[in-house]
């Protein structure tokens, strides 16, 4: 059983500006990787999704990679 990435690295607040971390949870098309594959806790997965969406709005991450 793989451990949650954020608790393993002692990250309490998932920041939308930290693009390097958020990129780990995107698939090659730029979609958010599912809860099942990331093995992140439900709470962190929700925070992760909102952080990715904020980063997308401000042009730090793409909506789609063609």
């Amino acid at each position, binding site marked *: 059983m793989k451990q949650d990435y954020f608790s393993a690295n002692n*990250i309490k*607040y998932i*920041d939308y500006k*930290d693009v390097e*971390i958020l990129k780990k949870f995107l698939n090659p098309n730029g979609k958010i990787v599912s809860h099942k594959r990331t093995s992140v806790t439900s709470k962190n997965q929700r925070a992760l999704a909102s952080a990715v969406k*904020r980063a997308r*709005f*401000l*042009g730090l991450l793409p*909506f789609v990679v063609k």
Partner: protein
Amino acid sequence: MLKAENEEKNEMDENGNSRIYELGYLLVPTVPGEDVPAVFGNLKELVSSLGGVVISDEMPKMMPLAYAMVKITANVCNKFKTAYFGWTKFAMDSDKVSELKKKLDLNPNFIRFLIIKTVKENTIAAKRFVRGEMRRRPRADKNSESGTTVPINKDEIDKEIDALVAT
């Protein structure tokens, strides 16, 4: 429960009404490089004029956008592929934030901005520290291993030679 209480304390200031917010924004790339600090200063003044206390911030930096953004100014459609991205973290009265938003909406220098609720702690530095630590550890291990293995090898070779001589 304790954690939740601590988080609430972070969000709520002594006054009870003020919260921690973060404003992330994209400035129009047509702003000349020398004027960026002035725009940044004006923004800080605007936050403090509405009773906000700036906690931390970062100077707007030129960066490529992940996709082209469109902004309509004076009935002209402008497409941007680069922008200055900056952010400011501040404590402000929850009633004043909507006023701040209204003022920023009228500012022609912004392509987009985003106001979010956040926590007082620095959210970026902690992560960088973790990453740095992860990188350093294997290097240190390799050095210590190479340092200690050399004398052990010599001893082992001596013993082996002795054993061969004895036989």
